[in-house]
């Protein structure tokens, strides 16, 4: 089938999901130890969406992410070391420590970027797609966004404009059932948000967000369509956030039974099951080990790096003559 990932691509997605999970778990430990600063939004359980949706993109394609972007960062090819350095405010981070975990960007890899304003990645990707169209480039723009973000006004405005102008953008909705703590039944007037695609005259699809291959296929088809100049699509990936909304989550609103049920459908477990007969457990174990080692090394190295020195921002100067 068209848009199906190769076996190597599947292994690579598996590897990236393990990188993300290791990163998230390590961040969780460090938070408990009081060693993080500011809120950190982990995506444990949602890795298949971010990794699967970005796996077929090139470096000149753009991705606009969210506050919960670690899987998108890794999916788009960012290095764990520079991500970790940024999260810990080091000079060697992607943004020299100025952006932090939520707002990270790497223009060279087309990750522009994390965003802490819920929904903001949607018009951002739409604008990038406009830019691509005007420059007659063959690239696409993608935004990943949550079920909470789908209720924002800019989501509506962006989808309307994208469809009207047939912009090369792919809307990937990570439906993880919650805003921060508000269940989707408390924020979305319909259960399946992809039904809204019809209101913009664009295709809408639902996919199992815990199956990276399924995500790859559905999103891949949308990416191809966008590249052909046929306009945007909406892909709704159903998934679940297995940890707190951020490191400051005090809990109490997720059902234990839900968590258990979704843990049984852990995207890494699903990928493992699908791959183990294809490539053998040994290769997967090696991949697993290497991924974890890379993340461990990233933390070790980053923690030894210096903090940045302060420099003023010339673009922000209020006076022509600096006083």
């Amino acid at each position, binding site marked *: 089938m068209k848009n199906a990932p190769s076996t190597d691509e599947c292994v690579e997605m598996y590897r990236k999901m393990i990188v993300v999970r290791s990163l998230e778990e390590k961040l969780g430990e460090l938070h408990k130890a009081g060693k993080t600063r500011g809120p950190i939004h982990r995506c444990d359980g949602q890795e298949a969406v971010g990794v699967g949706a970005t796996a077929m993109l090139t470096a000149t394609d753009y991705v606009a992410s969210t506050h919960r972007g670690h899987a998108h960062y890794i999916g788009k090819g960012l290095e764990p070391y520079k991500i970790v350095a940024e999260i810990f*405010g080091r000079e060697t981070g992607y943004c020299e420590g100025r952006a932090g975990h939520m707002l990270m960007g790497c223009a060279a890899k087309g990750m522009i970027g994390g965003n802490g304003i819920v929904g903001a990645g949607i018009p951002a990707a739409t604008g990038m797609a406009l830019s691509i169209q005007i420059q007659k480039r063959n690239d696409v723009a993608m935004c990943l966004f949550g079920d909470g973000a789908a209720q924002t006004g800019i989501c509506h405005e962006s989808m309307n404009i994208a469809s009207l102008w047939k912009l090369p953008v792919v809307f990937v909705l990570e439906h993880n059932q919650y805003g921060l703590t508000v269940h989707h039944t408390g924020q979305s007037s319909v259960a399946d948000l992809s039904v809204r695609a019809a209101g913009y005259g664009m295709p809408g699809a639902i996919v199992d967000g815990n199956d990276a291959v399924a995500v790859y296929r559905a999103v891949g088809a949308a990416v191809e369509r966008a590249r052909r100049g046929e306009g945007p699509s909406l892909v709704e990936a159903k998934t679940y956030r297995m940890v707190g909304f951020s490191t400051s989550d005090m809990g109490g609103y997720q059902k234990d039974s839900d968590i258990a049920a979704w843990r049984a459908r852990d995207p890494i477990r699903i990928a493992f099951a699908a791959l183990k007969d294809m490539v053998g457990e040994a290769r997967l174990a090696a991949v697993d080990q290497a991924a974890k080692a890379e993340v461990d090394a990233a933390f070790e190295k980053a923690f030894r790096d210096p903090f940045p020195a302060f420099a003023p921002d010339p673009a922000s100067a209020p006076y022509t003559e600096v006083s």
Partner: protein
Amino acid sequence: MALLRYAEALNAALREEMVRDPNVFLFGEDIGTYGGVFKVTRGLLEEFGAMRVRDTPISEQTLAAMAVSAAMTGTRPVLEIMYSDFMALTIDALVNQASIYEYIWAGQVRLPFVLRTQGGGGVGAAAQHSKSLDVFLTHIPGLKVVAPATPADAKGLLKSAIRDPSPVVFLEHKSLYNLRDDVPDGEHLVEIGKAVTARAGTDVSIFATSRMVHESLSAAAVLETGGISAEVVDLRTLRPLDLAAIKASVAKTNHAVVVNEGWRFCGYTAELSATIMDHAFDDLDAPVERVAQLDMPIPYSEPLEAVVIPTAEKIVAAARRALA
């Protein structure tokens, strides 16, 4: 009198006003089941039910507009906007809607709503979750803007805000929620539009808002050790501003420092400086000194953020410059 955290004082004010007036209701993101990300609304859903304590979708622009129209039609909405950075999404509802109706409809409607939010930096929340956008609000006619610095004022001003017939924007500070202090029980109202002298002094007046009041008090303590007697005035209400209190203090000290956590250029300290120029120029022995946030985005990394946000040290230096 009870020893309460700032967040608990706010919670008490909300609870008391909801008991007093069935038309008071709360809405906002994560304020119900979870009790608010800063736990200000904890327990209120359980006590008052889902009709009057509503979790909402992430739709700030519409929520603010709904507060305006709900207030016009018989209820007293109290809307929580989680971070003051997201107030950017409410500006249309405030400046193009809330601001105008009491006047342009010649008194046919009143708009008794409160929009609570919290701002401020210093905790590594980075460029989109740390800003102090006070002037976006204080510039707008028809709004009142308050910013309590203590638990007692948090309670007293919030109760007054809820009873006010006009729109009140209520600015909390993320670093004050855990501040614990005495708070009067029950009917404790603090009048909107009245500053308070947080510390009396004779050599220099420091006019400050929100968390900067505490930085100013620290600064005053340092200045004291250097033989300088600083008066710290907690403005409490940013609009309408207590001009009499400002004039009286400047008349006494002849030197003024103005402190606000927001950006300097076109920020709230600009108005304070200009107001003092307008109304107390002849009392001034030196130019008013402004202490504000550096004019740039707030960086994430701790050593960078520390340079950008105003501190007691900067206030001390400003006071010394004023007196030099």
